[in-house]
């Protein structure tokens, strides 16, 4: 839990003595069901232990490729999806956060009654899945969301006035002509007007629909808005309009944003701080400037290299090999090691990597019959015939496999058609500070 402490305490850059949202080891696992009885056979670890805090008035960018868990995390924060582990706090004071850090540093069994009660008290007041009554209402009103797809996020059978005015109606803030006027002023604040009150969503262009979504999110004058890819479905010229609008609204109303996007250029422009996600985990986080000027994680480097900047002339685009691994069975050690161009033997090489390597050797893969797994680092590969087993052993021993994997290979022994491989086991990587509130999980930088 030290990760949590470092994350939470280091993010107290701004002077305010509370965060808007604090994540402490948040997990969201989806069960995989199979068979007629729908038995749970595994877990997709969409979000797997994420901790950071969002301070009042700032924009935190959450960036990553599809399937990395950023949207799921956004849905957890906005209360749409229940978490399966960890805690999300709303308006958690810094002193309370510090107390939590202290108590959680103590092993669970050794905590005193008082300490447990204290956690319980803090949770009851701030943890979003334990809020009720007025506290829940305050959270609900102050945490709004704008979705990616403006087609599906507006009810096609409601008029703009009903869509934008709905939050006001739910909280009985206004009715009748007052409601209409409030809606008009909301529409005007997003660049629409009175003439749009009685229209259906389908009568608007994509950009205009996104403005309606924003107006709805603003209706209750919230403190915090989750922006889930708000401009990914738009053309650049319209995207520019919306991004400008969002910035303007933030200046006027002192809004706090979580800006989720796969587009580095957009995130860089909009965010004060950025967290980079890969396969359910945050691999690096820091200020926008830090991250872009001196990134400390090869995955961030890869994203930057793959995303040319239009203003610079001489960038060479570079991609990553391989595909994102299955989030139901994430790699050991650093989850990025399977695609990492600078992976070392200590990055978490495991049996699955060896099997994946066999995939590229077509003739040998066909001969593989079974994998007898002792741990993720130690297994026996059973082959169809002795020749294949021998060929694999030679290939592995003579460095046909990636150099880093070879470095991790602790033992390689063949017995007839069986090849036993064992690799050096490693611990899971952790986020650690590398100075200036810049956190990374890459062992090349953390030295852990």
């Amino acid at each position, binding site marked *: 839990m030290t990760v949590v402490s470092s994350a939470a305490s280091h993010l107290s850059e701004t002077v305010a003595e509370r965060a808007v949202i604090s994540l402490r080891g948040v997990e969201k696992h989806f069960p995989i069901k199979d068979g007629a009885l729908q038995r749970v056979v595994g877990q997709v670890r969409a979000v797997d232990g994420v901790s950071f805090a969002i301070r009042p008035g700032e924009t935190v960018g959450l960036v990553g490729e599809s399937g990395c868990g950023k949207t799921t995390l956004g849905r957890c924060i906005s209360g749409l999806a229940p978490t399966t582990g960890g805690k999300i706090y709303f308006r958690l004071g810094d002193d309370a956060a510090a107390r939590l850090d202290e108590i959680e540093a103590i092993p669970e069994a050794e905590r005193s009654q008082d300490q447990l009660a204290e956690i319980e008290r803090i949770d009851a007041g701030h943890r979003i899945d334990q809020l009720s009554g007025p506290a829940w209402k305050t959270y609900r009103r102050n945490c709004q969301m704008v979705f990616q797809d403006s087609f599906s996020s507006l*009810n096609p059978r409601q008029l703009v006035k009903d869509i934008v005015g709905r939050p006001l109606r739910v909280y009985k803030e206004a009715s009748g002509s007052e409601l209409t006027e409030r809606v008009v002023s909301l529409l005007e604040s997003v660049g629409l007007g009175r003439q749009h009150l009685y229209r259906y969503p389908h009568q608007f262009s994509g950009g205009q629909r996104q403005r309606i979504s924003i107006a709805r999110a603003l209706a209750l004058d919230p403190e915090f808005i989750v922006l889930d890819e708000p401009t990914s479905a738009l053309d650049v010229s319209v995207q520019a309009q919306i991004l400008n609008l969002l910035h303007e609204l933030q200046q006027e109303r002192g809004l706090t944003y979580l800006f989720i996007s796969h587009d580095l250029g957009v995130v860089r422009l909009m965010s004060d701080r950025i967290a980079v996600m890969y396969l359910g985990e945050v691999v690096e986080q820091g200020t926008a400037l830090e991250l872009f000027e001196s990134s400390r994680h090869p995955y961030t480097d890869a994203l930057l290299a793959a995303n040319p900047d239009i203003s610079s002339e001489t960038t060479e685009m570079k991609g990553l090999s391989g595909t994102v691994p299955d989030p139901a069975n994430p790699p050991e050690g650093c989850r990025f090691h399977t695609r990492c161009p600078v992976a070392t033997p200590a990055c978490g090489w495991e049996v699955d990597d060896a099997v994946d390597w066999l995939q590229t050797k077509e003739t040998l893969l066909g001969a593989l019959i079974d994998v007898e797994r002792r741990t993720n680092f130690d297994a026996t590969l059973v082959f169809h015939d002795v020749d294949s087993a021998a060929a694999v052993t030679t290939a592995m021993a003579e460095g046909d496999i990636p150099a880093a994997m070879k470095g991790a290979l602790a033992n390689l022994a063949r017995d007839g058609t069986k090849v036993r491989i064992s690799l050096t086991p490693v611990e899971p990587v952790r986020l650690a500070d590398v100075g200036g509130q810049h956190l990374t999980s890459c062992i090349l930088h953390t030295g852990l």
Partner: protein
Amino acid sequence: MTDVVGTPLSAAPVEGPLAVRLRRFTDLARQVLRNKTTLAGLIVIVGMVLVAFLAPVLTTPNVPDPYQMPRDWGALNEPPGTPGHILGTTSDGGDVLYGIIWGSRVSLRLSVIVVSVTVTIGVIVGSLAGFLGGKIDEILMRIVDVFLSIPELIFALAIAAVLGPSFGNIILALSMVFWVKYARIIRGQIIHVKQNEYVDAARITGDSRFNIFLKDVLPNSVTPVMVQATLDMGSIVLVGATLSFIGLAEAGLAEWGVLVSKGQVGISTGRWWASTFPGLMIFLWALAFNLVGDGLRDVLDPKTESR
């Protein structure tokens, strides 16, 4: 590739909410009626419904029960064109035209009752299953599956046979069988609609589950039910008439299926009319509702052409 964007919004005059909703409706209606076959179907329906309503005016009602065929024992097996019996008579002197006119009343009653009952049950069951999900969904859908395992006519026939021959029992039997389809349709729709982000957006506003269901989920789920109900207005008469043809209605009822059954005996001796005309009415009735249902689907629900 074919997205040609944008009506210039500022150009249109500002309309009030009522006018906008009304125009949405009239636009839809105009779109539906632009199709000539739909229009033809609608005209046939209007005609038949008029006949049903005007039956006591168009004919002299039989006493004591106008739904029983009057018997003219002096005119058995008269061919069409006979004075007083324009469409001929049956083997026991029933006037075919009278049967057709009062039969439309019977059919209208049958389809309206069965469709409204089955839609109500179906929508309630389907909504519970689709919106609540989980175990309730599981149980309700297994029941629905069991009901769907028996071909619907056979099922209705068995129920009606058990209840005893009467047209009321046919109505009851059909109501017990036909709701299943709607439950299934509405559940599927709801599960689909629930995934839309506007439902999430409504949850974020903090609205109650029930309100979300009522404002966001249900209104966006009912279109296929409306289409199916229109089609069923026709097919229920088809199935009902089949049951009465087999002999599950009261004998002598002025109902199209009963009349076809009655006339069937005479065809080998060339007396074609007593079956042909009432059967034609069943066909027209079903055809008209099928045409209108298709037209509605093309406009309201173009993605799901048929299932």
